């Protein structure tokens, strides 16, 4: 199809145009149009309400982001402190057996005994 038609155009056919106008005629009743207007405005209102539920004002969004950033920093530092304390406790447990609680010590001794028995019996 040509993109830039320069040929002689066919004139409008009045019979066809009249019939086309009837086929494509918009509803004439004013009740139809007031109904359509009401449906459009109802959708507009619904959209406003819908947006109000999830649209956060920009100022609040900034405050929220700063608070979330601060919370991440606090949580990170707490986690690091816990890990340091845990590592230190582990280290102290290894170099100083007196810090090991009694049940753990007993379990370790039992495991060592069993290992010796297995070594002697060859099982």
């Amino acid at each position: 199809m040509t993109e830039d038609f320069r040929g002689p155009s066919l004139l409008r056919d009045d019979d066809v145009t009249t019939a086309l106008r009837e086929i494509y005629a918009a509803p004439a009743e004013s009740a139809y149009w007031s109904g359509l207007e009401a449906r459009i405005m109802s959708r507009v209102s619904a959209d406003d309400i819908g947006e109000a539920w999830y649209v956060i004002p920009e100022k609040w969004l900034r405050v929220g982001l700063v608070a979330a950033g601060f919370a991440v920093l606090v949580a990170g530092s707490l986690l690091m402190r816990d890990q340091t304390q845990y590592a230190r406790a582990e280290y102290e447990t290894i170099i100083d057996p007196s810090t090991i609680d009694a049940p753990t010590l007993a379990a370790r001794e039992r495991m060592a005994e069993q290992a010796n028995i297995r070594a002697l019996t060859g099982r």
Partner: protein
Amino acid sequence: MTDRPTDERDLVLSAQRGEREAFSQLVRTHQRRAYAVARAIVVNHEDAEDAVQEAFLHAYKALDRFLPDQAFGAWLHRIVANAALDITRRRKVRDADELPETVASPFRDPAEGNELRQRLKDALAKLPERQRSVIVLHDVEGFKHSEIGQLLGIPEGTARSDLHYARSQLRGILGPVRRDL
């Protein structure tokens, strides 16, 4: 376009400030023409109504980006045309997936009962969609080639040639029918 009434600019400004009644009045003023644009593009009354509703909702959401010194109608018509073209595309996909069925329309078509009109409807159904839209927008709604080009996103020359071929096709299809009538 600067021939629009100044009170429309005031309405647009009020609507942009969030006054619902102002937007309602814009709907009241433009909905018939918006329907005509949509109806020229889609295949039935229901789709045209859907396109009009979608378009007004979209216009409402985009209202803050509209410059009040421009013509609201021309801006709205482009939105309507886009909504109608979108519905047409979705309908094509849907129709390809489903068996064709006849949907009862609550709106009584004024063309019913007239032989020429019925034949014309059949002939229109055989036209490529864009040619059908162009002939309706031009011959029925009175849009200029350039306006049709903007609405449908095609060059003005293409709108012109589409109109020529649509008229030619309809004449070819209706010629024998009209001799019979």
